[in-house]
């Protein structure tokens, strides 16, 4: 097991260089000081209203994501590797989506099976042959990365639809700066506070060519009952753009406008945080009250840019994931810099029989799931759960993939019994604009607070940490 602070040597392992100053500080600080700051942090989060909703849990309409005050630290060299790998990955994802909706060379070459694309519910035939400004589909990607040893990073998921969590990256840093100024005097840490600026530049750069020199950008939210609503309002505020709901928008002659106190105003770019299904009731789900009738027509007419584009889901489901190394090679002619977790596709009979034989060693995931729901962690499940899952798997193998259980790295974390190692992952946010790719150093580190748990999702008891990328 690899620990971010102590390497592979267990609790007696030598402290890795990036963590030396932190380890010294932790050794000197009194436990009650740490505990006091932890409670202070929670109070700050609560007062700022930084909450998320858990669906199907009326008691927890607004919950706090637990925040751990011990930062996760990446050295400049480690970040450099990650950064190059992430850029490569996102370039390949964009090229792949463009190809699927246009020439389909990767399908013709037999690298990705056709039915995996065309029978995928998130494939959008409306996008066939549809040009998008500057061929960019995924303007904002959240790539989930885990680490298993000093040199090995794996990509776990490419979130290419509407990834969230970036507000926590920003707020975690703000809180740390307020609560632990003395720690910041021991380190030089790359800033993250420029993320909203980078995002705005990215969004403006992809405005339709018809837009004015200073395009109008809005953030489209499903509304205050959405689990990420706090983040939507936070980002709109930092971007200085209007936070709109579907009912604020109106489409006339294939142009999108927002209703303002001074009449309607034309919109050029919509950073939408609402799923494809709900965008436009005339094209997608007719029962959606969240969307804007006519939005797709305006989009297809090219008068407005949607970020991310419609139909990007075909790049981020778990079955497509297994082809990512080939996808990177096919479009970029390069070896992937970040590893892919070996994945058995249960749709293939050989893979399925392997999975059924080794079910108690594997993590089995639903192809279209997210949020850590609908998965089986073989080594941590009892016989009855495994038996039930085996039945599900056999009845619809196409719906599942399986992966070995990775031993995710751990990071020291404040828990009830004191400071103890807990498993973590990392979600960096990759911005792709007309001019270039931008990545703010770091990202959101999520931590599984339960001892031994590998599930870091906030809806399942995960917390977050500030992520430091050192400056040298």
């Amino acid at each position, binding site marked *: 097991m690899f620990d971010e602070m102590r390497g592979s040597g267990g609790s007696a392992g030598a402290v890795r260089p990036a963590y030396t100053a932190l380890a010294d500080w932790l050794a000197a600080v009194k436990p009650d000081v740490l505990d006091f700051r932890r409670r202070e942090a929670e109070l700050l989060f*609560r*007062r700022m*209203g930084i909450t998320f909703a858990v669906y199907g849990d009326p008691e927890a309409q607004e919950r706090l994501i637990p925040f751990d005050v011990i930062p996760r630290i990446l050295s400049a060299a480690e970040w450099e590797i990650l950064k190059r790998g992430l850029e490569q990955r996102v370039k390949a994802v964009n090229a792949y989506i463009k190809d699927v909706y246009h020439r389909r060379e990767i399908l013709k070459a037999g690298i990705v099976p056709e039915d995996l694309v065309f029978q995928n519910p998130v494939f959008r035939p409306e996008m066939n042959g549809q040009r998008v400004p500057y061929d960019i589909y995924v303007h904002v990607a959240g790539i989930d990365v885990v680490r298993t040893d000093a040199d090995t990073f794996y990509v776990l998921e490419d979130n290419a639809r509407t990834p969230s969590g970036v507000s926590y990256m920003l707020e975690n840093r703000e809180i740390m700066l307020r609560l632990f100024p003395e720690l910041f005097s021991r380190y030089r840490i790359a800033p993250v506070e420029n993320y909203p600026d980078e995002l705005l530049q990215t969004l403006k750069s992809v405005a339709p060519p018809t837009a004015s020199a200073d395009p109008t950008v809005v953030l489209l939210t499903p*509304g*205050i009952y959405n689990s990420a*609503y706090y983040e939507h*309002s*936070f980002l*709109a*505020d930092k971007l200085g753009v*209007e*936070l*709109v*709901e579907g*009912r*604020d928008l109106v489409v006339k002659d294939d142009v999108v406008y*927002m*209703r*303002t*106190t*001074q009449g309607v105003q034309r919109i050029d770019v919509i950073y939408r945080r609402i799923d494809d299904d709900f965008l436009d009731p005339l094209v997608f789900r007719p029962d959606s009250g969240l969307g804007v009738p006519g939005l797709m027509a305006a989009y297809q007419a090219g008068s407005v840019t949607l970020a991310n584009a419609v139909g990007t889901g075909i790049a981020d489901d778990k079955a497509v994931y297994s082809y990512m190394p080939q996808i990177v090679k096919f479009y970029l002619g390069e070896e992937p810099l970040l590893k892919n977790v070996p994945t058995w596709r249960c749709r293939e009979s050989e893979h399925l029989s392997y999975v059924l034989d080794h079910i108690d060693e594997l993590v089995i995931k639903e192809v279209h799931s997210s949020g850590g729901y609908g998965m089986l962690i073989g080594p941590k499940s009892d016989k009855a759960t495994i038996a039930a899952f085996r039945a599900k798997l056999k009845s619809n193998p196409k719906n599942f993939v399986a992966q070995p259980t990775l031993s995710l790295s751990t990071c020291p974390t404040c828990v009830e019994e004191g400071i103890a190692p807990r498993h973590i992952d990392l979600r960096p946010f990759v911005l792709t604009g007309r001019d270039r790719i931008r990545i703010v150093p770091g990202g959101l580190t999520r931590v599984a607070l339960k001892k031994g748990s590998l599930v870091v999702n906030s809806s399942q008891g995960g917390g977050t940490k500030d992520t430091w990328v050192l400056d040298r």
Partner: protein
Amino acid sequence: MLSRTADNLYWLARYVERAEYLARILDTTLRLTALPLAYVGESNEWASAVATAGCANAFFAAHGEANEETVTEFLAFSTSNPSSIRNCFESARLNARAVRTALTIEMWDTINGAWLELKKWGNGPPSREEFARFLRWVLESSLRYDGSAYRTMLRNDAYWFSRLGVYIERADNTARILDVKYHLLLPAQEQVGGPLDYFQWSSILRSVSALTAYHWVYRENVKPWLVADLLILKDEMPRSLASCYENLVQNLDCIADAYGRQGPAQRQARSVRTRIENIRIEEIFKNGLHEFIGEFIEDNNRLGTAVAQQYLM
């Protein structure tokens, strides 16, 4: 700015103002009911409180009798009464969440803090003493909200729409008190002047926090027609109809200037103000105080509609 944002700011301000008004009504009612019957007469002050809050129909549909228990529950803590103090804060916060980006941190802190605090009060405080503390807390929250808006907001359309909400609600509240208690203010009551009326009149003043102001303005004993004069016509009295309309005209003009366009809302506000400016209290009594107030409430609602149609949709 987005019409919906303006709408949220407008209603946010209205709900906070309404919560304060309800707290004042409950506070004065508690005072009146603490007096011996000889001082206040046999009238049911709790029923009167419900009427002054403007929700008599809804109340009596749910409760048979208006008494301390039912009325405090209904006006302060009820989840089914959309205009209870609890629901006012609840709605205020919903509106605030929807326009987080248009609020300053101080304003959000106040609303969010009030909403969190409200949870601690549960379904109502156990004792009168606690309840009095609760009412004071409501007043303080409203004052803090108003103060933080006044001190921290940019003077742009967001601020002006928020002020429109305050003054339309306030004008409505003052008019409603006058409407329910108008019989006490008629000149025919003059000869009575007993303790009964004195406490009723001063309770009216107290519900709009104007008792001290009255003494400063008139330097006289509390007289009913002067109470009406103060609450309707006196510019310097911040809760008077005259003052509310002066502010409404001013804020609407700011919006019109910024947007370069006057409209029905500006004209409606100006016409109401002109009428108030040009009438004397004697005339109001001659033509009927009740009728005057009734018309005013309708006019005020018309202004609300005009603002909504012109800006908020």
